[in-house]
C-alpha cells in the first residue's frame, strides 16, 4: 500500500502570477495552512482562484513566489510528483475507463499490482458509498455519483493536499448539501489538508476552518468564518461575504477602538474602524448587516419609511427608505406573531451594538 503522510502543511509564499497574455491573475498571495485544515478560497468569478489552485497543483509555474508542502519547496516538481489530489469542477473522469479503473488509475501509475489496486478501489468506493458501481462507465452515473468517484480517485493516491475546484457548483441544491457534508466527513476521516475553491460564501463559511477571500487577484482577508463574517477587514469582504447595508457618513471623532460617525441618513452612531484608524472629518462607508439593525422606539438611530416586507421563512426582511433617499434592509427573526409593519410606516433604526457596524474609509 502507498503510505504518503496525509495532513501536511501548505504554505503559499508571496505568489504572483502573470499570464503570458499580460493578465495579472494573482498578486502577492500569502497563505499559511496547517496540516489537516480545511480552507476555502472564496472570491467572485475571475479573481484568480483557479489560477492559484493550478499553481499549487503544479500545472502553472508561478511568476514569483514559492509553494511549500510539508517542509519541501515543490516549485521544481511536476504535477505528477507533488502528491496533490485534485477534484475538477467537471470531475474529469476518464470516460473510457470503468469506475474501478478510474479510482485505481493513480495506483496503477505507481506500479501497484492489479489485485491490490482493485481491493483499494473497492475500499474507496465503499468510503464514498458507491460500492456497487465499480464496473460501470462514468457516463452511466449521475452528477453526484460522478463527483464521489472523482473524490475517491483523488483520495486513492493518498495525497498530502486535496484541492477541489468549485466542486459543488454543478449540483442542484439538495445534492450540494449532501456532498458538502460528505466531503467534510471524508476530510475529517482522512485528516487530509484540503483547499476548496468556491464563489459561494455560504459554502465557504459552512465548510472551512478558515476562509481566504480573494478579489482581483489579491488576498483580502484570511481568517476563520467568524473573523470573515463578523470582523471583515475590508469593505470588499464585508459586502461579498453575507449581505450588508452600506451607509455613507462622516467621521465625527475616532480612536483605534471606536469611531463616532454622522450618517448621511441622519444619525450619529458608534462604529468599529474595521480597516485601521480613521481620520476625523473623513468620509466613510459604514456596513451594517440586515440582521444587525433593529427598530427602536425612542429618538436614537435614524429615521426611515417602511417600503416592502418580505417574509422569508425564519426571518422577515423589511425594506426601509432613509432620509437621504437610500434604501436599507432590516432582517427580523420571526416570532410566533410578528408585529406587522404597514407599508409607509415611519420607523427608527439603530445597530444592535457598536461592534456590529463596520466603518471603512470611503473609496472614490
Amino acid at each position, binding site marked *: 500500500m502507498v503510505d504518503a503522510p496525509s495532513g501536511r502543511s501548505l504554505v503559499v509564499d508571496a505568489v504572483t502570477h502573470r499570464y503570458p497574455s499580460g493578465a495579472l491573475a494573482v498578486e502577492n498571495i500569502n497563505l499559511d495552512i496547517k496540516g489537516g485544515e480545511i480552507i476555502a478560497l472564496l472570491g467572485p468569478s475571475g479573481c484568480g482562484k483557479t489560477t492559484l489552485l493550478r499553481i499549487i*497543483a*503544479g*500545472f502553472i509555474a508561478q511568476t514569483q513566489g514559492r509553494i511549500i508542502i510539508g517542509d519541501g519547496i515543490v516549485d521544481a516538481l*511536476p*504535477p*505528477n*510528483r*507533488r*502528491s*496533490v*489530489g*485534485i477534484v*475538477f469542477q*467537471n470531475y*474529469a*473522469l*476518464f*470516460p*473510457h*475507463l470503468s469506475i474501478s479503473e478510474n479510482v485505481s*488509475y*493513480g495506483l496503477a*501509475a*505507481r506500479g501497484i499490482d492489479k489485485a491490490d489496486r482493485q481491493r483499494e478501489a473497492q475500499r474507496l468506493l465503499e468510503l464514498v458509498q458507491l460500492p456497487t458501481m465499480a464496473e460501470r462507465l462514468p*457516463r452511466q452515473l449521475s452528477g453526484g455519483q460522478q463527483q464521489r468517484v472523482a473524490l475517491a*480517485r*483523488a483520495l*486513492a*493516491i493518498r495525497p498530502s493536499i486535496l484541492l477541489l475546484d468549485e466542486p459543488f457548483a454543478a449540483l442542484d441544491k439538495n445534492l450540494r448539501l449532501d456532498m458538502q457534508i460528505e466531503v467534510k466527513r471524508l476530510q475529517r476521516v482522512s485528516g487530509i489538508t484540503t483547499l476548496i475553491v468556491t464563489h459561494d460564501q455560504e459554502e465557504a463559511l459552512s465548510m472551512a476552518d478558515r476562509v481566504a477571500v480573494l478579489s482581483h487577484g489579491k488576498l483580502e482577508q484570511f481568517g476563520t468564518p467568524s473573523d470573515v463574517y463578523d470582523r471583515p477587514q475590508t469593505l470588499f469582504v464585508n459586502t461579498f461575504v453575507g449581505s450588508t447595508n452600506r451607509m455613507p457618513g462622516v467621521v465625527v471623532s475616532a480612536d483605534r477602538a471606536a469611531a463616532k460617525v454622522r450618517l448621511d441618513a441622519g444619525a450619529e452612531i458608534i462604529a468599529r474602524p474595521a480597516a485601521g484608524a480613521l481620520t476625523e472629518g473623513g468620509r466613510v462607508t459604514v456596513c451594517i448587516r440586515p440582521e444587525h439593525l433593529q427598530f427602536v422606539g425612542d429618538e436614537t438611530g435614524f429615521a426611515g419609511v417602511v417600503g416592502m416586507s418580505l417574509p422569508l421563512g425564519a426571518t422577515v426582511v423589511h425594506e426601509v427608505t432613509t432620509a437621504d433617499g437610500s434604501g436599507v434592509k432590516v432582517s427580523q427573526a420571526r416570532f410566533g406573531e410578528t408585529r406587522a409593519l404597514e407599508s409607509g410606516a415611519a420607523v427608527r433604526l439603530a445597530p444592535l451594538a457598536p461592534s456590529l457596524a463596520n466603518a471603512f474609509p470611503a473609496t472614490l
Partner: protein
Amino acid sequence: MGAAPASRDVTSYGMGLAVPLALFFLVFFVAPLLQLLWLSLHNDTAGLHWGLSQYQHFLTDPFSLGVLGSTLLLGAEVTLVCLMLGFPLAWLYQRVGPRLQTIIILIVLLPLLTSVVVRTFAWIVILGRQGIINATLQSLGIINTPLKLLYTQFGVVIALAQVQMPLMTLPLITALGRIDPNLDDASCSLGAGSWRTFFRIVLPLSLPGVIAGCTLTYAAAITAFITQSLVGGGQMLFMPMYLYQQASTLQNWPFAAAISIIFLLAVLAVVSVFTTLGRLSRGYGGT
C-alpha cells in the same frame, strides 16, 4: 431534456429528401457497378460466354496477385507514414496558441488547394536524379552519385503521404479537440507520466479519429492513379494502372472488370476491418 413528442419515430423523418441522391446513386453508381459485375462474368472479350474464368485467371496468376498485394501494402505504408506524421501535428495543434493553430491548419489544408497533378510533378522535381534532394546532398558532399528516389516504392510512399495527409490530419485534429484538456491534468496529478497519459488516455480517446483518418487515407492512397503512375513510373505497377492497361490498352474488358471487382472487395474488406475497430472503440469517448 424536454419530453419528446411521443408517437413520432425520428428515423422516418423526411426520407423523401434523400430521393434525389438515391436516384443519382442508382443511375451513376449502382448501375455501372452491376454492369461491371455482368461484364466480369464473361469468359471472352466479345461477351458471349458466361463463366468465372476471369476471376480464376486473376486468382491463380502470381503476377496479378503480386500487383494486388503490393497495392494493399502501399496503402498500409502510406497510412502508417501519415499516422506517424499526422498524429504529432494534430497533437501539437491542440497545444499551441490560436495564431500557430491557424498556420498549422493552413499547412494541412494547402495540399487540398493545389491540383494533384501539380503536386505530383512537384515531387518529381524534388525526387529526380537532378532533383532538389540529390542536388543538395551532392553539393554538401554527402553523396557522390545521385540516389534513386524517383520510380521507387519509397518515392511513391512519400509523395502519396504528402498528397493524402489532410485526410489523416483533419479527423485527428477533430478527435483530439474533443478530449477534455482536464483529463490530461487529471492523469498527471494522479502521478502518471506523459507516456502513460498518452497511451492510457489520449490515444484510446482519439481512436475514433485515428480509425477515420486511416480509412480515408488508405482508400485514397491505393486508388491514387495519378501519383502512383507518375512517381512510380513504368517499373512499379499498382491496381489502378493495371486495370487501366487491361481496359484501355489491351481492350480486355471482362478481365479489367474482374480486376475492379476483386479490388473493390479487397478495399471493402480492409475498410470494414477499420470500421469494425471503429465501432469497438465507440464504447470509449462518446459523449
